[in-house]
């Protein structure tokens, strides 16, 4: 199997689906001839034709609105929002429409669709190219939210999302498009090649939605993470020497409650990590769930390690980013708790 980085793996997933299902089509800003600002749709228009992968006007609400109509017709559109920071003009179409169509029509109309969007910081993108928007969608009944952390999962989860009959928000941690990043920004960047999860089959396969992946077994403490933060959590486990179990959630809605519950009941301790702003972040939901499910097993307070309650400041990227030191510190505190 060829080693793929995350961009190649996503491209391969899209290529497979365009091949397999004539109802799949792709559109978004700059995704056509050019192949997307992150090159995820590179070559797809040339290979599959102008109407299978094309540019859209700069109108995120129009993109999602049109995709809903297409989904209702019977297609399976996959749209790209160029940066998650620019998804807000589509918020009404996502929240009031994509998420509600099935319910409000008693399944008379449905709109299967996948909304792909690069998200997260660590690329010196400043406040409007760095945001983690997941918690603004996990509250919305009717939407699913998926976040991969490596090339293998990225492909398998993207195919599963496209084949899913509900609207799926598929957030791509852009900091790890080209290589895993554990938050040690002072160290040289490593590529995906060589990483076990970069062995990506060229063919169609799926990674099921709703299933977490335990990346590291441990018995003292559970770390819940997703996206880039999975790698940060692994580094923190390594750095701290704590026997931590690191769980990559992969799907936030529906979250894999069984995996979470089993792990925290085993370890009795839990740290939750995400890059988004703390207040009302998805970590709050995880904390509440863990506490509800595992109260009598908890030996210390659950901690959240997150971005601060500020916008993402350009010059303070690494002060904002919850890196391995902050995670390790929290892990130690929880171990002492």
């Amino acid at each position, binding site marked *: 199997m060829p080693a793929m980085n995350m961009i190649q793996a996503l491209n391969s997933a899209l290529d497979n689906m365009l091949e397999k299902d004539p109802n799949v089509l792709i559109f978004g800003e700059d995704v056509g001839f050019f192949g997307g600002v992150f090159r995820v749709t590179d070559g797809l228009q040339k290979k599959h034709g102008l109407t299978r992968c094309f540019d859209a006007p700069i109108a995120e*609400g129009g993109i999602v*609105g049109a995709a809903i109509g297409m989904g209702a017709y019977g*297609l399976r559109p996959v749209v790209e929002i160029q940066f998650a920071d620019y998804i807000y003009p589509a918020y009404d179409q996502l929240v009031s429409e994509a998420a509600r169509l099935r319910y409000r029509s008693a399944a*008379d109309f449905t709109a299967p669709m996948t909304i792909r969007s690069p998200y997260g910081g660590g690329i010196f993108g400043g406040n409007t190219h760095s945001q983690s928007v997941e918690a603004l969608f996990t509250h919305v009944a009717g939407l699913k939210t998926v976040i991969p952390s490596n090339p293998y999962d990225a492909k398998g989860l993207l195919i599963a999302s496209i084949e*899913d*009959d*509900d609207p799926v928000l598929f957030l791509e941690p852009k900091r790890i498009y080209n290589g895993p990043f554990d938050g040690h920004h002072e160290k040289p960047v490593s590529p995906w090649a060589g990483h076990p999860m970069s062995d990506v089959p060229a063919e169609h396969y799926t990674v099921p939605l709703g299933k977490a992946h335990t990346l590291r077994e441990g018995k003292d403490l559970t770390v819940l993470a997703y996206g880039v933060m999975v790698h940060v959590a692994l580094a923190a486990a390594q750095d701290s020497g704590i026997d931590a179990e690191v769980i990559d959630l992969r799907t936030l809605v529906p979250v894999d409650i069984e995996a979470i519950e089993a792990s925290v009941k085993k370890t009795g301790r839990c740290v939750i990590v995400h890059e988004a702003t703390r207040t009302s972040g998805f970590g709050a939901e995880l904390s509440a769930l863990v506490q509800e499910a595992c109260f009598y097993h908890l030996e210390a307070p659950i901690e959240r390690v997150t971005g601060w309650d500020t916008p993402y400041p350009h010059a303070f990227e690494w002060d904002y980013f919850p890196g391995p030191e902050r995670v390790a510190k929290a892990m130690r505190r929880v171990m002492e708790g």
Partner: protein
Amino acid sequence: MKNTQALSLHVPEPQTRPGDEPDFTRLQLPAAGSVERPGISTPALQMRELAYGLIRVLDEEGRAIGPWNPRVDPETLRRGLKAMLLTRAFDDRMYRAQRQGKTSFYMKCTGEEAVACAQALVLTQEDMCFPTYRQQGLLITRGYPLATMMNQIYSNASDPIKGRQLPVMYSSKAFGFFTISGNLGTQYPQAVGWAMASAYKGDDKIAAAWIGDGATAEGDFHSALTFASVYRAPVILNIVNNQWAISSYHGIAGGDQTTFAARGIGYGLPALRVDGNDFLAVYAATEWAAERARANLGATVLELYTYRAAQHSTSDDPARYRPAEEAGGWPLGDPVLRLAAHLIGLGEWSNEQHAAYQQEAIALVRAAGKEAEAIGTLGQSRPEAATMFEDVYKDMDWRLLRQKREAGF
């Protein structure tokens, strides 16, 4: 360049308010038959004046004249007239049903019946309509069961959408009627997307969408017209200008500055302004737009110029913000009476037939009412409560399964 003049903020106000005499003297209403009818493949740039005219077919005497006369056979017109009468009877009864506490909410389309009833006859049932809450005429014209509409309004055990939506938010794929949203404007880009999908598949179906004058201000209106123009989507984009958006007159949406049809010009789309109370004009304009769409020539904007004769909804009281007599004085008249006069003039209808069908319509509605009320009105009957956890997703996830259990189902 410095300024010297103090600026001032302009807030538009209608000419008249409660207590004033209604005044329609500012309206410029071209005579029936006076607007030209270009061929459907005429470049949009050459048809711009259509956005400023007013396509009218029925003259003061009820004769059909001019190039836009669609020459519809009398049988079809009678169907249209009956559909309008039935719609009006339905509205009347459901309005009263709300007043009697049988449901929580209702919205009439009084005075605007020609819009949906004429258009339903032009479009096929395979075409998809993306309506607002004021196009019940589409369903009624197509023969959707009145009792089923009432079941929805009553959220009763037979409500096809399982008690989930506010009354009048119908949904019927089989009748080419897209699920209505409470959020204004959202249906517009969806209709464009649906039309793009039909074109993408090489199918022959077209889409139509409706929006109110007020809701044209939403961003979705703009993205829809942009997408429709860029991808030449086979869609008819109707703007129902009934002069009011709840208590806000059309000027609050920009209607004092230019016509709503003119919006289409900005996107290079053909845009027709049509007397919405003239059944034949609505029919003809819709036919023209549908032909363009079916010929792969893309989208058309239609402004249907009409008047909201009733309350916005059962929660509204127009006497608070407009002269009580305004509705009665609307210079373009009543679409029902105008079509009836036309048919009577042709010898294809009579006052007796009219009165008889009005009774028949009332009877049809009453029968449907009995049927629906036998199942139950709001609160008396409802779908199985456990179904409230269904259709959030295709399959219930653990949260919904647990919550359903927690709710006791």
